[in-house]
């Protein structure tokens, strides 16, 4: 069974035509991989389907805009993986 990171890295590679081996746990989806907000909707759709969750993109965006969070917390892929694991765990609770 592949890890959460592997699943989202594969989604990003396929959705955005980015070489899979250039996608690292430390990669920032926006700053390092150059994914724009529209492409991120495709990624969010694929993640939502793959994990059976609903990424709270609006909440995250609001937190970043309000200075309560940094984009690193949600868009560095190892952190995104952790957030997804939390959402999956919360769904099963």
């Amino acid at each position, binding site marked *: 069974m592949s890890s959460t990171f592997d699943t989202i890295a594969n989604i990003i590679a396929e959705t955005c035509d980015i070489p899979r081996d250039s996608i690292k746990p430390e990669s920032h989806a926006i700053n390092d991989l150059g994914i724009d907000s*529209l492409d991120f*909707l*495709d990624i*969010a*759709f694929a993640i*939502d*389907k793959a994990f059976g969750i*609903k*990424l*709270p*993109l*609006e*909440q995250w*965006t609001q937190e970043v805009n309000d200075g309560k969070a940094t984009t690193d917390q949600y868009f560095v892929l190892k952190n995104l993986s952790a957030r997804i694991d939390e959402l999956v765990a919360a769904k099963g609770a």
Partner: protein
Amino acid sequence: MRLEYFQLIDRIVDINLADRTISTEATVPTTSTIFEGHFPGFPLMPGVLLIESMAQTSGWLVVAVNRFERMPFLAAVKDAKFRTFVTPGQKVSVNATLVHEGSGYAITKSSIALDGKPICDVELTFRIMDFPNSEMRDKMREMAALVGFPAEVPANG
């Protein structure tokens, strides 16, 4: 259709919030300046306007699901296919299904049928945002009334 007002559907036939589906219908006008250019001597409903009719149909469904509290804006068009010509005077049926409600976005699949035969389909992505201002929301409500949007959205969603 009132092409001059960019109204690409005539009437909402059905909205089912439980199934996340909508059906609309529209008749292509027999005359329009659009047909003078598309194409001279061979008038055809432009494919981009057929996409818009599927977007408007999908949009009313998303508006209904959001109970007129938020507005969908078209963000992406994928896999649009046009299988036959649509000509002035023809009546088409447009269907859409909400396939995913994300956080701040929605994905629909929509299709158009002519005489019961599927002729167009597409996958659409919308950004869902608050209405930019009350004037737009009021105008959208007026438009909704024109196309038969249910006064009370069924509460079976």
